[in-house]
């Protein structure tokens, strides 16, 4: 398995160098997220008002912000939180969506219709407004941002899992599992679910970027994480206020970080789709 998969991946990468770059980007992002706090030159939270709003220099690579905090250090440290928000939000909707969707796709009866209705209701919601309302209702803590992001992602995962299971549920190996003595539930959980995971993982990686953007949007309207925690979205949102005064570094660097992260996740997702099914790459 591994050797062919590896060869397969290498074959794909040769045809698609962007994926390799993206994978490297994601790896370094993970590295930064883990070791960020130890590699930053300054304390990301300590203010120094006398040093406020300095443009980028050798001392402060990405300049300083309104409170004189080093933007570069904040960027690095923010990686962890941003990644955590994105990963947990997406995983949450992924897990829930995969399980619910799989059961629906498999059962394809009344359960499917009921859940389908529910999903319809959710899809009919203007999702960003729903996220806003949820964060506003629950309070803008990181957990709630995660929950809101997860909830608005959920219908897509349910639909996706449902469709993926639906095409597989009548395959021979599924029926074989049942005639080998598996109950419906274990067929879904132990047979179908693992099989749709790779396809869903692609979706996940595409959504990770989207989750980060969503958090940034919430920050922009004031429903993001709490200060003074560094987070890219809120840094971009705060920095956006300074565009008009020419303090570009406040928005450019966090924006760039956000962009690169989202870009890497998207390209990686694309590439992963290639590896799974070269024809269905979208």
């Amino acid at each position, binding site marked *: 398995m591994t050797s062919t998969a590896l060869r397969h991946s290498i074959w794909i990468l040769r045809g698609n160098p962007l994926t390799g770059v993206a994978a490297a980007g994601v790896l370094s992002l993970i590295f930064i997220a883990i070791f960020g706090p130890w590699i930053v030159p300054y304390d990301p*939270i*300590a*203010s120094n*008002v006398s040093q*406020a*709003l300095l443009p980028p220099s050798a001392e402060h690579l990405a300049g300083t912000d*309104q*409170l*004189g905090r080093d933007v570069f250090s904040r960027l690095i440290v923010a990686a962890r939180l941003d990644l955590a928000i994105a990963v947990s939000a997406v995983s949450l909707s992924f897990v829930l969506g995969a399980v619910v969707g799989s059961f629906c796709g498999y059962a394809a009866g009344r359960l499917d219709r009921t859940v389908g209705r529910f999903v319809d209701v959710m899809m009919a919601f203007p999702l960003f407004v729903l996220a806003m309302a949820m964060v*506003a209702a629950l*309070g*803008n803590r990181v957990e709630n941002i995660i929950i809101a992001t997860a909830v608005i992602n959920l219908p897509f995962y349910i639909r996706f899992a449902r469709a993926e299971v639906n095409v597989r549920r009548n395959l021979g190996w599924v029926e074989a599992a049942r005639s080998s003595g598996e109950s419906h539930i274990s067929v879904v959980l132990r047979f179908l679910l693992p099989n749709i995971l790779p396809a869903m993982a692609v979706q996940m990686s595409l959504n990770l970027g989207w989750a980060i953007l969503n958090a940034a949007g919430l920050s922009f*309207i*004031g*429903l993001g994480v*709490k*200060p*003074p925690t560094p987070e890219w979205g809120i840094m971009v949102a*705060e920095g*956006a*206020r*300074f*565009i*008009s*005064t*020419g*303090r570009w570094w406040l928005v450019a660097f966090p924006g760039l970080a956000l962009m690169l992260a989202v870009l890497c996740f998207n390209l990686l997702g694309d590439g992963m789709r290639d590896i799974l099914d070269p024809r269905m790459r979208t």
Partner: protein
Amino acid sequence: MQPTSFKTMFRATAVLALLLAATGPLQAQTRAETLRYVTGASVNTLDPNIPGATRESFALSLSTYDRLVSFGRKQLNGKWVFDLDKITGELAESFDVSPDGLKITFRLRKDAKFQDGSPVTAEDVKWSLDRAVTAPVLGKNQLLTGSLTSADQFKVIDPHTFEVTLPKPDKLALPNLAVVYPIIINSKLAKAHATAEDPWALAWLKENTAGSGAYVIESFKPGEQVIVKRNEAWNRGTTDKAAFFKRIIIQSVPEPATRANLVERGDADLVIDLQASDVQSLEAKAKLKVISTPQYNAVTFVSMNNQIPPFDNVNVRRAVAFALPYDDMFKAALFGRGAPLFGATWEAGKPPNGGYPIPQPVKVDLDKAREYLKAAGLPEGFATTFSFNVGQASTAEPMAALVKESLAKIGIKVDIQKLPDAQMSTQINEKKLPFFTEGIVAWLPSTDYFYRNFYIGNQRWNYSSINNPELTAIAQEARFEPDKAKYEEAGLKLNAIHFSEMPQIPLWQPNQDAVMAPSLEGYTYQFHRQVDYRDLSRK
């Protein structure tokens, strides 16, 4: 990027540029007589009395309606500000206060006409003021601060004479008639639109005006823009002639950076509510006129709920007062734009005067703060939540970060909470927030007015929930104190109590920054912190 899509993009950009470049000529001629005023707020009602009316609605009503009297203006540090002590007639040609201070008689201008051409009579004044104190409107609560509570107090003497009776001499009675709410309405017109359920025509007046003001509504798009045109017959301004601008466009642009761009590019004539950083950079460029006035009638606080532990302990409050990084906050949040209310020195620990607000003798002194904490029995500190309003984020957020950082040094762990406006006001109203920042404003800024409205009773504006019988008594008494010296003495006492109790910590009076085209003149800082369009003219 590969060639084809780059080319496509390039072409798209070129087309876009071409499209945008072909701008037609502006109607330059009318432009000079038109004022384009851009604000972050929006007008939501044409009647300022409607609950929920916004600041911009108040501002608009000053131009569409007249009141009996209005505030004068004075120069302060070279800038025009409103003058609380100088009340001049607006619809009233003159007025007299009886020697016992219980009767105010207004003689109305005989030439005053409503916008539909009918004359302004004492009957209209009576109906309008009756409405302000009896209908479910915002004016009711305001006017009672000037002892105006009942329709019985208003009397028509003759078509051009009108009398107000007071139960007690109240120096705030007359100023109250100059604020936003007691507009004089064309009663015949309004009554024609009144219904049995709505005798005061609240619904109709919300979307229509029936006033005698300097400007007539041309178009009104709630939440977007209002266009008004000059009422040529109006002559009640300071110069006794019609207002300068023929047309005024009052436009809401929610993004402050965009507002700054607009005025800088000359597309807007006047902008308020800018971010401090934008004002600073516009000021530095020196292309535009920037008038910054400290908001003399407003104060920004860090408030503590005096009923919620540990802030019920005065030493905790004092500890906080000596642990706030005032200078940094002032610089980072306001870019130094405002009047600081910290870092004063009080001779012998006594307040230097009885005004409000006065700079407090506080500064960062962590040792002192730690001592106070020890005295409060909390040497290790404690944990609490600091809240602020999302709408205030651009100043409050850096402030909060600094508060958190500094308090951590004396062991107080602060969790920062950002609340949407409605939630913030609800929680304040329910007295649930232990520690937060808020700003207050008083239209009639006298010492007793501040103390009575913001330090007394179980009501929303008593942010610190302070319940000090002595303070209450002095403030209530001072209200009707006619003697200046005694009043000053009461003010000194109140200020001393405030400092020793430290219910909340005044930080500063933020600047009101108005950025305008260099040709614009006459801008005056008004009590309602918005622009009075009638003041303005173009060179």
